[in-house]
């Protein structure tokens, strides 16, 4: 029962992570499910769904299909849709039922590709893992397949890794991040995976540096460094000074080709608790430390903790009860988190600073999302620091 969620909904899961990554590409995405997972993605995890038309299908898996393991029916449906849609690629995604009955999504993908000649990607998504796992897998799979076809390097060329609506919503954040680097003389070759196309992914191997803006981009950063020798900077540009710090670091990495994770200095546990996506939370902490002298900031990672990004005292959040225990520990006087968590404070003397996150509260606050770069975020940081603006 310790894992029971009383205040929070289930966070976005891996199939939503894959879908959101592939949204901007000209492919056909099929979730092998009974309709609920697909409905969950389009209704709650994809701010761009409304007002856009994208070929995202569900297989309408039924009990008898699961009992009989009728993959053929699924394959026939996908091929039929492919004949009319003429997609550049097909992606077939698992969900809880295919996971339980052991459907081999990679094997199914191979069979579809053999019959259609269209590149087909299988994702063993389960619905039991967080969205960032799906984002990471989709980015690596597409970079592996489409990347590596170019040998020339583009000086000043950068990729942005880990940019998705589940972390950055559908406001100006994605464009602001691209504009930040282009305004500073860089060419953004590919922004994985918002506002990019297959050609951009193909050209991504020309980049001089990768900029990882969320934890889900770390797997692709490590892969591209190993495969194509592209170093990376791991930090989300936030506010004014924080964004400039990232740009400066990217310039430095262009010079010495050494990967860097931006960490603040002299940090310690306590005072401020930030609950959320690890990279964004880290970057908030860096800005609070560097611009406002707030050094006691702990990051609570809601979607798994990457040790390479963490301070010793950071926390890998297990479940909702773990959050409640942290709130009642008396250790923190300020909490930065999705607005849904405010109710968990009850009458505790803790100041709350709302930071909406699509992967947590879905569409409840996605139009009230923070603008990550610029004055508004700077004002938010100052508010946390208790400095009147």
């Amino acid at each position, binding site marked *: 029962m310790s894992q029971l969620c009383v205040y929070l909904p289930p966070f976005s899961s891996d199939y939503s992570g894959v879908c959101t990554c592939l949204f901007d590409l000209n492919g056909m995405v099929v979730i092998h499910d009974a309709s609920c997972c697909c409905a969950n993605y389009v209704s709650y995890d994809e701010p761009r769904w409304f007002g856009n038309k994208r070929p995202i299908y569900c297989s309408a898996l039924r009990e008898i299909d699961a009992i009989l*393991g009728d993959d053929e029916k699924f394959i026939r449906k996908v091929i039929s849709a492919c004949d009319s849609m003429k997609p550049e690629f097909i992606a077939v995604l698992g969900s809880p039922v295919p996971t339980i*009955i*052991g*459907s*081999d999504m*990679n*094997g199914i993908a*191979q*069979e579809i590709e053999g*019959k259609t000649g269209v590149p087909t990607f299988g994702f063993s998504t389960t619905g039991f893992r967080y969205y960032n796992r799906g984002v990471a897998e989709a980015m690596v799979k597409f970079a592996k397949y489409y990347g590596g076809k170019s040998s020339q390097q583009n000086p000043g060329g950068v990729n942005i890794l880990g940019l998705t609506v589940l972390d950055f919503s559908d406001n100006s954040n994605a464009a602001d991040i691209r504009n930040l680097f282009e305004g500073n003389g860089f060419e953004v070759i590919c922004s994985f995976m918002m506002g990019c196309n297959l050609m951009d992914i193909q050209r991504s191997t020309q980049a001089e540096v990768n900029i990882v803006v969320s934890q889900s981009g770390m797997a692709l950063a490590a892969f591209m460094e190993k495969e194509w020798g592209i170093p990376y900077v791991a930090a989300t540009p936030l506010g004014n000074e924080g964004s400039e710090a990232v740009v400066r670091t990217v310039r430095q990495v262009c010079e010495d080709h050494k990967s860097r994770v931006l960490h603040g200095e002299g940090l310690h546990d306590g005072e401020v608790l930030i609950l959320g996506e690890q990279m964004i939370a880290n970057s908030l902490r860096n800005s609070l430390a560097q611009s406002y002298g707030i050094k006691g900031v702990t990051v609570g990672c809601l979607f798994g903790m990457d040790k390479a990004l963490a301070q010793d005292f950071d926390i890998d959040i297990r479940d909702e009860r773990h959050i409640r225990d942290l709130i009642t520990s008396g250790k923190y006087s300020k909490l930065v988190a999705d607005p849904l968590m405010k109710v968990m404070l009850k009458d505790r003397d803790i100041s709350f600073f709302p930071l909406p996150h699509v992967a947590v509260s879905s569409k409840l606050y996605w139009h009230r999302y923070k603008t990550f770069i610029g004055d508004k975020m700077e004002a938010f940081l100052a508010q946390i620091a208790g400095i009147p603006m």
Partner: protein
Amino acid sequence: MKKIAIYGKGGIGKSTITANLSAALSKKGYKVMQIGCDPKSDSTKALMHGVKIPTVLDQIKKNGKKVTLKEIVFEGYNGVLCAEAGGPTPGIGCAGRGIITAFEKLEELGAYEILKPDLVFYDVLGDVVCGGFAMPIRNGYADQVFIVTSGEMMAMYAASNIVAAIEGFGKRGYAKYCGLILNSRDIENEYELVSKLARETKGQIIGVIPRNISVQNAERLNQTVVEAFPDSEMAICYRDLADKVMEV
């Protein structure tokens, strides 16, 4: 790394043959790993000298996410690495899903990269009854499948079904069917019957294991024949079969 799945009807002698192959190949200098894929969890019993090792699923149940490789892979006779996937409580749960979970755990812990076996044997139960029992022949696991059969009708029927399942998965790049191992039950015209099955399944008999009391004697000692009676005819027979398996 060569990865081989051994299939066949329940009780046909898969585990005995697989354990003897593992023992014989380990003596030839190969680093061998044997993974039992049967809820009964007795594939590696002879290699472990009768010691029942904790299964992957037992350890996941006990320790959750904190399972380590040392808790699920054990060194048996002559350094053969032994693991048992395990299964649910009889009568409930899902054995097929159990195999998948066990395989995913071995992969997650980097078993193949860390232990670096030259050879992996997957000793799989009875028949390809559901998705879980096809896991060992999926892309990335076994490359080759050998099927153990006798000349008995039910054993050959099961073998034929297994071949059909493997062929059905051909479009997905799964493991290839590489032949039959005849575990003799001394029935009339046994070799001819199994030869006919081999022709019908476009396969071959890659080895014949005669019926011999030394198998039961070794079993009583909780050892493989290769270990217990290394100079016996049966040990020679298993070593020959091991050579043929490596040649295919």
